[in-house]
């Protein structure tokens, strides 16, 4: 059920964030349905072979964000909130944009250049879509 979550010690991203990312993705694509029970903190820690405290932190943050709910003594569940997925994508977009801005800045690009590159990326996406529709 959860063996497809992978955490790396070398990605530079804290492990609890990696776990959060992947749980959100699972929920966003529907692998874990709204209201479904998810592994307990200890189960997931044992199966990922990472410390209990790391998984606990990921679950606490996910709870705070309203992605999962934990019922004491019963376990943890995906939140029943149906408006969840668009918000997850929204957050993911914000993260990617932040990262793009960071990378652009560290490459010494100006604000204008970064905006230009983003526009180009948008153009490319719509071009590919047009090609697909025409073919």
């Amino acid at each position, binding site marked *: 059920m959860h063996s497809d979550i992978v955490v790396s010690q070398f990605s530079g991203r804290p492990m609890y964030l990696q776990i959060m990312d992947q749980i959100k993705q699972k929920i966003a694509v529907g692998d874990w349905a709204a209201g479904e029970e998810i592994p307990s903190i*200890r189960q997931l820690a*044992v199966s990922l*072979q*990472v*410390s*209990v*405290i790391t998984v606990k932190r990921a679950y606490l943050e996910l709870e705070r964000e309203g992605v999962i709910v934990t019922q004491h003594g019963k376990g943890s569940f995906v939140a029943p909130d149906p408006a969840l997925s668009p918000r997850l994508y929204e957050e993911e977009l914000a993260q990617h944009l932040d990262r793009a801005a960071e990378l652009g800045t*560290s490459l010494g690009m100006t604000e204008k250049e970064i905006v230009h590159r983003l526009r180009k990326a948008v153009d490319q996406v719509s071009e590919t879509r047009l090609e697909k529709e025409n073919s």
Partner: protein
Amino acid sequence: MSDICVRFTAVSKKYPHFLLDNISLELPAGSILGFIGANGAGKSTTIRILMGLVRQDSGAVEVLGHSMPADQAAAKQKIGFVSEDMRLYGAATLAWHMSFVASIYPDWNQAYADKLVRRFDLKPQQKIKGLSHGQRVKAALLLALAHQPRLLVLDEPTTGLDPVARREVLAELMAVLADEERTILFSSHNTLDVEQISDRIAFIDRGRIIDFADKESLLDRWRRLRLVVPATAALPHLPGIVEVGGSDRLPVLTTSQFDPSVLSLCTDRGATVQAVDTMTLEEIFVANVQSRRELQPA
């Protein structure tokens, strides 16, 4: 029984050339403590005191509710111990060792032992002297695990293991933790292993505990900052700076007390924050030890 599995209160031990100085530690049941220190820092001495093998000069040690070393016989029924210098009998087989250990511990679980034999890829009929280093470590670990101790104490369990054996050992340690009543304390200078599976971290250097924290908050408060300071501005004074590298204009700062307000302190002073890097446990440990040694040479 309290929820604290191991408690050290102001424990000291003096040797002619080494002082274990005022060690206090608490380890709750169900968690893993990673004990990190350089060679000679006091890891093994601490573990020997914990096991009742060495008597502390002062301070109290309580393990699973038993006072050490006075009550060590009762405590050891519930402790599994593996250390580097522990020898198995070379002329005897693993099977002989298994029945020997089984005769001592009432909680020996033969089905679990058999499972571990297969998982660790060991041969019970093989004599210990024919085993490789990795196989010996796994054999010793099997003997410690199969009597289902409440507390596992492992002195450098992954040192000298090949990558596959290391995986197997770490996986088995995590499997133990599936039972939330069981606790592990392990020492290592392999910080990667400690970072992966520990809930709590203790750094020991020159006989003193220099940091003891839960792993997440430890990783959270250490950051390396790369700044750009314009010629007209001065390097801002930030909390918890343990190391300053780089140049005046492009300083690299290591802080042990990071929080987001640190960033506004920088920008308020006219500096630009180029990067805020998280640090690995190894980088944190080395920075911590080095800054303390500079402040207080031996």
